[in-house]
């Protein structure tokens, strides 16, 4: 078992009942069985305070969420949030009072941001209640999984 200081978590964030907002969780589900066994895969609704609790004692965190910018639906963007904040306006549609971008910043201010912290953002087409993933977003799931797999396996190899 990895010690607390080495823990690696993958957290798929979103609401599966709100269309493309569920993409993070779909990625997390698709990654099960595909990563080193010590990597913890979690699904999360996105509420910042409990998200911060998930980052306690974690050395590397990979977060996947939907976002809204002007990019075409299904576009995948990767942010190394240890280097710079998430652009707030693209992550502002959380149905919770405090969303992912503020959660990351709160973690930074409180010195709780994992040493490695990467956010994969998938451009949403629709966050309609009850809808599933739109075709372009569903089509991006495998690409995100492969990118994460490569990134996490490389990281593991580098650590060995």
């Amino acid at each position, binding site marked *: 078992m990895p010690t607390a200081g080495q823990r690696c978590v993958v957290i798929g964030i979103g609401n599966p009942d709100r269309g493309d907002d569920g993409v993070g969780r779909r990625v997390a589900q698709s990654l099960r069985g595909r990563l080193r066994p010590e990597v913890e895969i979690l699904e999360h609704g996105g509420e910042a305070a*409990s998200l911060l*609790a998930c980052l306690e004692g974690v050395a590397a965190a990979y977060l996947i969420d939907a976002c809204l910018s002007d990019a075409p639906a299904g576009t995948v963007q990767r942010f190394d949030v240890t280097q710079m904040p998430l652009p707030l306006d693209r992550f502002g549609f959380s*149905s919770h009072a405090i969303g992912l971008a*503020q959660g990351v910043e709160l973690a930074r201010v*409180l010195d709780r941001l994992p040493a490695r912290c990467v956010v994969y953002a998938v451009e949403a087409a629709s966050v309609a*209640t009850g809808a599933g993933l739109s075709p372009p977003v569903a089509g991006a799931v495998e690409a995100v999984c492969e990118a994460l797999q490569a990134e996490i396996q490389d990281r593991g190899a580098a650590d060995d």
Partner: protein
Amino acid sequence: MATKTIKVDYLARVEGEGAFKVVMRNGKVRSAELSIFEPPRFFEAFLCGRAYSEVVDIAARICGICPVAYQMSAVHAMENALNVTVDGPLRALRRLLYCGEWIESHTLHIYMLHAPDFLGYDGVVDMAQDHGAAVTRGLALKKAGNEIVALLGGREIHPINVRVGGFYKIPSRRALARLAESLKKARDLALETVTWAAAFDFPDRERDYTFVALRHPDEYPYNEGRIVSNRGLDIATADYDAHFTETHVARSTALHSHLSDGGAYLVGPLARYNLNHDRLSPLAKEAAKACGLGASCRNPYRSIVVRAVEVLYACDEALRIIDSYEVPARPAVPVALRASVGFGATEAPRGLLWHRYRLAADGTIAEARIVPPTSQNQPSIEADLADFIEGSLDLPDEALRHLCEQTVRNYDPCISCATHFLRLDLERG
């Protein structure tokens, strides 16, 4: 003639989508309107035709912050309809679950949404730069609430372990003992929270509210009690409709509630505290007294302190329940179906949450009504805005706008919750 309008088109640090507009003319407030434009979600309509047993999990979906409240009012209404009594350790476990939600929800509001107003920050991230220790305390305290809900509800948000008649799965003594260790630490943090919040500067404003809350013979109210007010109201849950009315107003997708004489009233922590101070635990009572909160408090800005006292009470009560817990013989009592009507009212973190269901003989839901706390508080929020702002019209616009926002946030409004019940009338030819 000077007309001034203070407007916020999108309220921050509240759950859901709302706005407000205050119009002043010649030094007087002409109108104060809270607009709720969160799209309606028609929960009551789509509960119809579902089985009685499904309501517990569907109602939990109304809110990500107070799902337990919706589950509890729904499950009690169903048990009322089906003449089922859930008592002893099963009742205690439900109360424990509710403690968890109060801790989670109140702590979120105190630290992450409301405290920045008092300490002069735009939000919790800015506040954390100067008050990191306080925010860390808030996060640890909230986590204890999450642990209760995760253990008893099966997961932290939208719990899935409650059923009509009891629970699906009962926690082990060992799991509860572990929880107690977290809660003892949380209780200390809650006590610190009371002291911390009580030291804020509060606008010196009061109103003579009609407070409405549940009242129970022995307990600070969660799941059960008569609906009472400080003006002599004392009714059974089933009689709610005879004493309250709901009306639609154009500016809100949430219905407005009034007493049947037309008066506004207030539900939530301030109402509960004023009507049930004598039911608090000795520790919570003592902490309230020590921080200068009397047995009654009509200053809504101090509701943040009352919330802190309620979090302390919830930690204390959770520990009492765990300490006296005896494993129930079975996780749920049997349920027999019948055509009936049932009522349930519980104290959500934001106040009285009333449900009514009519069931067909096979347990299918024929009619559903849900009255959430924020809809009941809308007229009081508007009255506060009108009243309090009038005394502060000499403030610069930005300060006045902030005071308005802070005033709305006194209520911890859960706008999403309030907007699922717009009536849909269909005329068919």
